């Protein structure tokens, strides 16, 4: 194995160990006093503000894209009345969660990694420790809890944008009126589809934020290494999102939560 390969393998091992350590650290400090209520509030506001734009835009794009696909195939196979139902089913059961989680990892996850990594680099985490403040409690726990709470709300916003854009596109492109577009929607949208997708959002928020915070928290090196660590953050989180959705897909096929 060349030096570059062994160096890369060492870096990935460190990244894996960092994220694994953070899971233990998170639960160790979660139930200890003092609970960082103020920081949690600040992070909720921050995650909502930073995540709103990207999740809304991705919702609009997904809605338009799925409506166009459903409308096109609906015309082709003469089932245009079902285009709206198919669009909403795909959007709410899978698309806005999956693509939303990817956007969340890209926007919020990387922000956490860079922010905490630069705090580590400049000695701010050590400064906290010296003031008898545990950085996991003060820095990590508020970010993780804010992600768990905010991502489902951001997904709801993304859903609303996606539904709106799909209705508009269906009207403008295929001349399908909103009542026709929505007429079979209630037949396919079961409450379990919504509940499982929102639970999945919380799970995504948890894993994305823990991975991102862990990589920043145990970061070592300078600006170049911080860049590499941020890349690792997005790669690990995208893989994590896909794994969670795959596991969910398997469980869904076993338990039939989304069965129409």
């Amino acid at each position, binding site marked *: 194995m060349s030096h570059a390969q062994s160096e890369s393998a060492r870096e990935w091992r460190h990244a894996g160990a960092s994220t694994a350590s953070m899971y233990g650290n998170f639960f160790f400090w979660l139930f200890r006093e003092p609970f960082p209520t103020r920081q949690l509030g600040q992070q909720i506001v921050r995650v909502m503000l930073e995540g709103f734009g990207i999740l809304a835009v991705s919702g609009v794009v997904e809605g338009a894209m799925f409506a166009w696909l459903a409308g096109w195939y609906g015309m082709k196979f003469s089932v245009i009345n079902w285009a709206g139902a198919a669009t909403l089913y795909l959007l709410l059961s899978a698309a806005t969660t999956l693509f939303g989680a990817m956007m969340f990892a890209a926007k919020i996850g990387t922000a956490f990694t860079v922010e905490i990594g630069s705090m580590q680099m*400049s*000695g*701010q985490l*050590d*400064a906290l*420790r*010296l*003031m*008898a*403040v545990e950085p996991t409690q003060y820095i990590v726990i508020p970010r993780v809890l804010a992600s768990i709470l905010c991502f489902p709300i951001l997904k709801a916003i993304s859903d609303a944008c996606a539904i709106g854009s799909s209705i508009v596109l269906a009207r403008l492109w295929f001349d399908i009126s909103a009542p026709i577009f929505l007429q079979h929607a209630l037949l396919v949208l079961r409450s379990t589809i919504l509940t499982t997708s929102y639970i999945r959002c919380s799970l995504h928020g948890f894993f994305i934020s823990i991975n991102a915070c862990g990589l920043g928290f145990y970061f070592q090196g300078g600006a170049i290494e911080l860049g590499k660590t941020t890349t690792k953050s997005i790669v690990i989180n995208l893989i994590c999102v896909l794994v969670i959705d795959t596991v969910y897909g398997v469980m869904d096929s076993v338990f039939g939560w989304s069965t129409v």
Partner: protein
Amino acid sequence: MIRAHGVRFAFPGRTVLEDISIDIEESLTTVIVGRSGIGKSVFLKCIVGLLRPQAGSITIDGQEVVGATRQDTLAIRKRIGMLFQEGALFDSMSVYENVAFPLAYHRSASAHEIDKRVNAYLDLVGLREYARAMPQELSGGMKRKVAVARAMILEPHYLLYDEPTAGLDPSSSAVVESMIRRLQRERAITQLVVTHDIDLTRYIADRIALLEDGRISARAGREEAFAEPSAIYDHFIENRERIRAENGSQG
């Protein structure tokens, strides 16, 4: 008193501190000098329990730091303030919030008391009018002064400085030097400074120790250290003069 005996610390594959033994005397400013990368900052981090030595003992007022429980470490840290390289101020907080942070987080004082103390320490470092400024609006010297105010707010018995003048221009360095001197003179705080800045050492040190090859290789008072010949002069100062002379002659 801070007392280190036989301290050994190694990163994987590299021994940094071989065998450090030193006593930091009360109410004096002790300066540890040595080349960059020799392990001065590592030693400071060992003292405050941020790094754990593989061997040896460090006691602060008789209490062992190495292997201390989390509770004991927290108790020890409450007696120590530390100025990190470049200050390590919290970017998202104003100068006032940075200084108030240790008191506010631990809710160890009322809002009125916090306000009084923060203003007093900002006066002490001469930055009261910058209370609402953000760290990125300050010069390097100002950041160090804010960091000192933050380190002082819990009224520690010991104050540790990690390269307090590194990267500062001469006038900012002079401001930091004066502040360290004044704190020692007015408050009789026990201070430990690690630096490779000879001018700073000459100005603030009561005691000087030379860190070389992972050991304290020489110790002396200020006059003795800067008198020619002395171990510290020979190993450190003369070395600098020699390199300057060589470069000068090549130029």
